[in-house]
């Protein structure tokens, strides 16, 4: 009895093939020999997007991800310099000084410092961003110079990979936290409308978000939304909507009684020590008590608010909750010719 599968000659009477295990009674066995067929609709669907292929592609991609990470580690591992050198990568040129490449160290260090200083001077301007970006590039180049020291000049691909990794590491470890810190204590705010003579258009103010606001401080705050409808004449009707971020001075704190008479602002019946940024003289008479959790800030830098006599409007626009105050403006950094500390 010869096996149909492997042609092995089995002993007569064998039920299965002694070599491959195929049934000897297969020829006469009862079974369906007609294969399953795909329906017309499923064939069409498979042509549009084969689900199985999608699954296998995703599976293989996930499988390759592990291999890729191993490969990436292989790219990084030999390039990591000794710890003393790695620590000194924090400042461009420092590592070069440590390994004895003093000229290159000077070049990196001073170019970085110059660019950083200029970038900080123009912080808030486009040029400031460009200069800070260049300073970052110098830092990245200095780090790459150390990390890729073992590569031959022709190994462009590996150099590029290491460059990307070094840049990403510097950005994540150093520049992202530093940037967050900087914008927390010196957030540049560009003035979009003049506050004569105090602020002019395109002036840059630095705002510290970490200070606790107090009376007399110039702060960045959100104006409470207030809509004023002027009935106008005939068919003309004007609707004015006051809202948005403003910079102005805190004039009174919670519990203070604010009163103005004949253009004179009195806080707790005393002539106010502090004046708003714009010399604002609200007409008429009004008395308010500043509620708890709010500061009194006259919207003197809000165009259109001048000359209004409605006391409700002043009350609504001037009572600023603590939560709406974002920080104190302490420095006019740009233009450099008008550089001044705000008091």
């Amino acid at each position: 009895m010869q096996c149909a599968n492997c042609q092995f000659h089995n002993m007569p009477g064998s039920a299965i093939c002694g070599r491959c295990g195929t049934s000897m009674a297969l020829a006469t066995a009862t079974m369906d020999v007609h294969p399953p067929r795909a329906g017309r609709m499923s064939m069409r669907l498979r042509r549009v997007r084969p689900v199985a292929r999608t699954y296998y592609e995703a599976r293989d991609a996930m499988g390759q991800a592990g291999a890729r990470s191993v490969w990436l580690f292989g790219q990084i591992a030999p390039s990591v310099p000794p710890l003393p050198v790695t620590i000194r990568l924090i400042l461009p040129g420092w590592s070069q000084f440590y390994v004895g490449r003093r000229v290159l160290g000077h070049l990196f260090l001073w170019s970085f410092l110059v660019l950083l200083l200029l970038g900080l001077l123009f912080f808030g301007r486009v040029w400031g961003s460009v200069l800070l970006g260049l300073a970052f590039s110098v830092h990245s180049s200095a780090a790459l110079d150390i990390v890729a020291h073992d590569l031959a000049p022709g190994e462009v691909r590996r150099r590029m990979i290491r460059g990307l990794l070094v840049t990403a590491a510097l950005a994540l470890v150093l520049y992202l936290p530093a940037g967050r810190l900087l914008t927390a204590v010196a957030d540049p705010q560009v003035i979009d409308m003049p506050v004569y003579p105090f602020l002019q258009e395109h002036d840059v103010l630095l705002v510290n978000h970490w200070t606790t606001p107090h009376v007399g401080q110039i702060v960045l705050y959100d104006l409470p939304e207030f809509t004023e409808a002027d009935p106008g004449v005939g068919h003309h009707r004007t609707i004015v909507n006051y809202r948005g971020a403003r910079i102005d001075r805190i004039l009174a704190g919670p519990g203070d009684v604010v009163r103005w008479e004949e253009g004179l602002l009195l806080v707790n019946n005393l002539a106010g020590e502090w004046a708003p940024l714009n010399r604002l003289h609200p007409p008429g008479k009004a008395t308010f008590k500043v509620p708890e959790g709010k500061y009194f800030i006259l919207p003197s830098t809000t165009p259109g608010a001048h000359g209004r006599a409605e006391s409700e409007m002043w009350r609504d626009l001037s009572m600023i909750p603590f939560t709406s105050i974002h920080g104190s403006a302490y420095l006019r950094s740009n233009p450099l010719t008008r550089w001044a500390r705000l008091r």
Partner: protein
Amino acid sequence: MTRFDRLEFEESESQKGVEHELGRAQQQRHREPDRDERFWLASASEERRKGLFESALRYYSRALELDKSLVTGWVGQVQMLISMGEYPEAELWSRKALELFRNNAELLAGRAQALCRKGDVKGAMASCDAAIGQQGLFSYPWIVRGELMVARRENVEEYCFDKAIQLDEDWLVPLEIGLIYLHYGRAAKALTRTRQAVERAPDRAYCWYRQGVCELELGLSSPAERSLKHCLQLEPKYADARRLLEGLTMNRRPVRRFFRRLFNRS
């Protein structure tokens, strides 16, 4: 003694019986081919060589109805399902067949091809490795190995395909290699292999048809027209070739063809 040739004698019973048996055997011999599983296998193979996969599949099934131990029938069924683009069914069927014929090289190769077409290249590689590791020299596992190389974009498939052609000199082997190349959009390589098939079997209409298809894919309309005409000369009722030829003569788009040739992938 020619004058006694026409004398009539009474036949004996035994002689009658012998002649009757001979007649029955002769009748059986005449009638047998249309019932024999070998006949159905041959018919299936012939249909396959005409590119009629649906009827080839039917004939393979008929052969298996008569004898389920025909591995060729099972392998043929799997191959036909793959040729018709029914990959999950082919994979399922190859698995079923492998339960009957464990570690059969061609069935393993069929399963590998079905898996590869489904996108599971990893599984296909394992199955193909098992197929090549089996005893015996079959061309089909090497064809599938070549296809896997093409699917993985590894430029070493030529070795596998050449090995398959060495093992089997049938013209169907280079033609199927051409079909594989065509499936993966490598029309130039497909044309080279199809030309080999045409050289081996210039009297086969299907070879010429496939050559025409490859030439059309490459945007070579004039050679495609010649190939299709040659196919129709050999087989005037070849519907696919006629349809392609009519399309070619009606939709002449030289600019489109030019760009197709220019930007063709292979």
